[in-house]
């Protein structure tokens, strides 16, 4: 009886559940987690806020000197992500010309209070 033999084998072997708070589940590096904007590379073109399906990215005023394809320019706006609306689809990362937006492999919308968690 294959079922019985496997059950008895399981009885003596260690269960496969990882006891979460003690043992952590390994997160692969391709994991799409919290959105981060690399401030020094962002040129404020607001392409990410246009392409975001959940319209979670709004542009805020922010003056800064940035280097973009050899030329230095002054940017006027910077993206601000409302992490509770972000669905972590990665389209902003895909369509950012300045390669500034990245999804890090950290859990995304987990904030102590329930009001908007802004990145």
């Amino acid at each position, binding site marked *: *009886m294959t*079922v*019985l033999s496997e*059950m*008895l084998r*399981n*009885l003596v*072997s260690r*269960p*496969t*559940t990882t*006891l979460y708070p003690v043992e952590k589940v390994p997160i692969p590096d391709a994991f799409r987690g919290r959105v981060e904007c690399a401030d020094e590379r962002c040129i404020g073109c607001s392409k990410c806020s246009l392409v975001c399906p959940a319209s979670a990215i709004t542009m805020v005023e922010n003056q800064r000197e940035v280097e973009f394809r050899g030329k230095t320019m002054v940017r006027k706006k910077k993206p601000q992500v409302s992490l509770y609306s972000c669905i972590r689809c990665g389209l902003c990362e895909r369509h950012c010309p300045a390669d500034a937006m990245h999804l890090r492999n950290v859990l995304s919308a987990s904030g102590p209070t329930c009001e908007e968690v802004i990145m």
Partner: protein
Amino acid sequence: MADPLLLAAYILIFPGFLFLFAYSMVFEFLDRRIVARMQNRVGPPFFQPFADIVKTLGKEVIDPEGVDRPIFDAAPIVALAAVMTAFLYVPVIGASPLAFQGDLVLVLYLLTLPTLALMLLGWLSRNIYAAVGGVRAVTMLFIYEVPFFLALVMPTLMAGTWSVSEIMAWQKEHLWLAVLQPIAFVIALIGLQAKLERTPFDIPEAETEIVAGPWTELTGRRLALMHLANQSAAVAGSALIAAVFLGGPALPWASGSAVLDAIAGFLLFLAKTLAILLILATVRGATARIRLDQLNVIGWKYITTAALAQVAIVLVMNAWEVGA
């Protein structure tokens, strides 16, 4: 055991009600842990059953609208009381002081009361799932009760007495009845699995079909009491089968002092009931739930004929022994 104080202690504390509740919680924990480990899971902590009962006792009691409250409250209590009194007649540390001729029949009938209580609850709670579940519980009762009683009556044929403690004493001189009547032992185990409504036979409480069957409308202390009754029935049932078929808590050779006897007997009792629990848990883990009409076919065609065959064998063995 004539001294009333000692008798009261026997009934209330040690091998009586308090022990029954504690041991039924240990029983449930071991059952859930064994099945969990077989399924490669971790399983609940040891205090989980205790926590469940305390929590459900504290929960609010919700009465379905238009239900007959007194009977709805009484049914779980009746079920629990029946099982507790049944446990008194089952030997735990040697022969039970309350034993009398015919207590085997009394224990069997007391163990049937929880199923009737379930049927009553199912019918009273005016919920379609509970009604269907209650009817299923009683229909299943007819199917497994006949072979179960036959299997437990056959030892009386061989041992010649109707008292559980005396059957246990008889087995001291002779072989265990599980060896002499293997078919009856297997049928008794199947009957116990069905009486406790565990997986191959948990048709009344089929969670994926009719929500929770008769248990649907039970909340708060009713659920706690009914759950406790079910678990205590597991302890009482396996203790009964251990006593009748596996020689119960008696040592074959009588050692010195009575206290040593009692302790050894108790350890034997624990070992045998846990062995039965292991068998029941393995069956619970390895099988799927069969349908009521399939159970009907299997119950009457195979299990009952096996029980009748066993009766014939026992009668032949009796005649042969009487002859020799």
